[in-house]
């Protein structure tokens, strides 16, 4: 019997080596697999290259991983946020490397890795400093820049529900990078609110088929939904609700 479920978050992140490239899902806090990241901090892997849209929020999740000094380099589109003080400090003091990628190129490069595309010509970033040194080509009268896949050793993502085959459904805009990161990593690790029996997810609505998934762990409601209360997120203005004390 296929069973990709694992007992706890520690088992889920077991084996991630120092120096690994790790994709971490989420857009800001939505979809960020905080429990997996916490387990990764405990697990101890360091010198990591992290791929995420952002560079951590507040002091939890990805921000805590950065604060623990485990990240050598981050590949992202938008590190600067109202609550990215951990990254800001590391970056300003030269203790972290940044590869800034326009968000759509980031997404498409991740998808390309998962879909076996060797490289693709994107119109995004043409003529800007983020295309410096990249190959350009005019196709059908329009200028494009050549972009290469981004693949990873591991992906850590968050979904709403999964089954033991690894089929996943997501919730609202927390879907964001999960489905594409799942395709682009050698080993994809997923935290879900709930594991459901095989056959209970409608085949028409499965967003990530289990073929892309290696380990699934149920974590219950995520941290910022604890006890049905919204904690650790942002308010209507995008400011952190329980920001804590900046590092």
């Amino acid at each position, binding site marked *: 019997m296929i069973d990709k479920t694992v007992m706890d978050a520690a088992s889920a992140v077991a084996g991630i080596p120092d120096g690994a490239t790790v994709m971490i899902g989420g857009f800001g806090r939505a979809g960020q697999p905080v429990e997996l990241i916490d387990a990764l901090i405990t697990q101890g892997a360091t010198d990591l290259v992290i791929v995420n849209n952002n560079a951590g929020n507040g002091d939890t999740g990805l921000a805590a991983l950065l604060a623990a000094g485990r990240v050598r380099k981050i590949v992202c589109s938008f590190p600067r946020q109202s609550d990215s003080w951990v990254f800001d400090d590391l970056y300003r003091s030269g203790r972290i490397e940044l590869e800034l990628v326009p968000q759509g190129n980031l997404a498409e490069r991740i998808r390309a890795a998962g879909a076996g595309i060797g490289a693709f010509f994107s119109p995004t970033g043409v003529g800007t400093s983020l295309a410096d040194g990249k190959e350009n080509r005019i196709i059908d009268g329009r200028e494009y820049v050549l972009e290469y896949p981004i693949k990873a050793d591991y992906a850590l993502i968050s979904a709403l529900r999964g089954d033991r085959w690894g089929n996943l459904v997501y919730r*609202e805009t927390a879907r964001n990078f999960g489905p594409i990161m799942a395709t682009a990593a050698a080993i994809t690790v997923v935290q879900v609110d709930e594991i459901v029996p095989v056959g209970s997810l409608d085949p028409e609505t499965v967003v990530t088929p289990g073929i892309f998934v290696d380990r699934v762990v149920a974590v219950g409601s995520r941290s910022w939904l604890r006890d049905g209360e919204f904690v650790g997120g942002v308010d209507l203005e995008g400011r952190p609700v329980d920001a804590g004390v900046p590092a």
Partner: protein
Amino acid sequence: MTRISREQLAARIAADIPEGSYVNLGIGAPTLVADFLPDGREVILHTENGMLGMGAAPGAGDVDPDLINAGKQAVTALPGAAYFHHADSFGMMRGGHLDVCVLGAFQVSQAGDLANWSTGAPDAIPAVGGAMDLAIGAKQVFVMTDLLTRSGESKLVASCTYPLTGVGCVTRVYTDHAVFDVSADGFAVRETFGATVEELERLTGLTFNAGR
């Protein structure tokens, strides 16, 4: 000289967005435009983090951490909404399917170049997000901005000195003083909120077409 408020400007932009349009409103001031779309006019808002059919902000007690916009603010979903992942969302943008996006700007050049993601300051933390994808992707790129910076410099320029977001991508610039079209031979004044073309030229140091 007459200037309009940020809210009036948002209303002015909203008036130019026809029913049935698919629209992305950039982070910051452009978000205001949503509040001025007339009741009953169906305009479908896209947020690049993965939704079409975005609705207004929820009540403070109804914030859902999984349901946010590109500025990471809490939003709602309208009946008829759809969720999708980032590659699909940016494929939608890059593929030219959005009718309009409204973006902020540091500078817009006469050639329609946009600079809105970095001032190039050496100690600044760079962050681009989806700005470059929106700039090159939407059928019409509207810029919403004050005409002048706080220190009185024109944001309309002969050529951008800040790092570019996109080349020749801006369709129209809505400012607190006037609305400008980007035309083959520079900015054309489309509408003013009281200022004369001569006054606008003095403020910006540019030469404008009188527009239509």
